């Protein structure tokens, strides 16, 4: 399943880059996608992927909101917290988690501990809670 997602992803990039749907170009794209090496991927069920993509779409307006908050009120304080990673995350989902947390301007993942912690750096208006 994840193998297909990977192939579709590569083909998508190819067509976006070339924007050309002639048979030759489609053939070149398919051949290149099949020839590029594929690493071992641990597969997550499609349900998990769908939730991740939904979260990503929700995170974009959220991050604009936070940007305006920082804009209107100065955030002068910094602190670091730790957050537990959900049990049995595959590497792809961990990547997505890090992406989501770092995308919002108030939080940045500073370290990912393989034992199951994200170290998150925050900025806030008040001193450390």
């Amino acid at each position: 399943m994840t193998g297909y997602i990977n192939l579709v992803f590569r083909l998508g990039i190819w067509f976006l880059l070339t924007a050309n749907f002639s048979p030759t170009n489609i053939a070149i794209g398919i051949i290149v996608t099949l020839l590029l090496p594929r690493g071992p991927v641990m597969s997550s069920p499609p349900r998990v992927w769908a939730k991740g993509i939904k979260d990503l779409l929700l995170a974009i307006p959220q991050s604009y909101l936070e940007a305006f908050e920082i804009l209107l009120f100065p955030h002068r304080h910094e602190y670091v917290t730790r957050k537990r990673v959900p049990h049995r995350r595959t590497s792809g989902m961990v990547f997505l988690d890090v992406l989501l947390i770092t995308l919002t301007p108030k939080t940045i993942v500073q370290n990912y501990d393989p034992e199951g912690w994200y170290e998150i750096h925050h900025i806030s208006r008040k001193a450390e809670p």
Partner: protein
Amino acid sequence: MLYWLSNGCIALGLFFWFWGTFPLLGRRSVLFKLHSLSIADTLGSLAIMVGLLIKIPREWPLLVLALFSLLVWNTVLGYVLAYCSSVEMDHD
């Protein structure tokens, strides 16, 4: 209507660029500057791209690719920079 929407997006993006880049000149920690840079470089550039996309939809494949790679690479670069610089601080 679309004209003003696209110009508004581009203006918002440029404003984010300036406002998020000025803290670079200050004397805060690297991580604090990363927060404001993530506003400037990720959100500002996304707004500019969306503005261009509304203005000239003909070139959508390129702009969509640019949007996507901006979103992914800039945030990942933020994480990598935060990780590398903070490990160094622990070491001192």
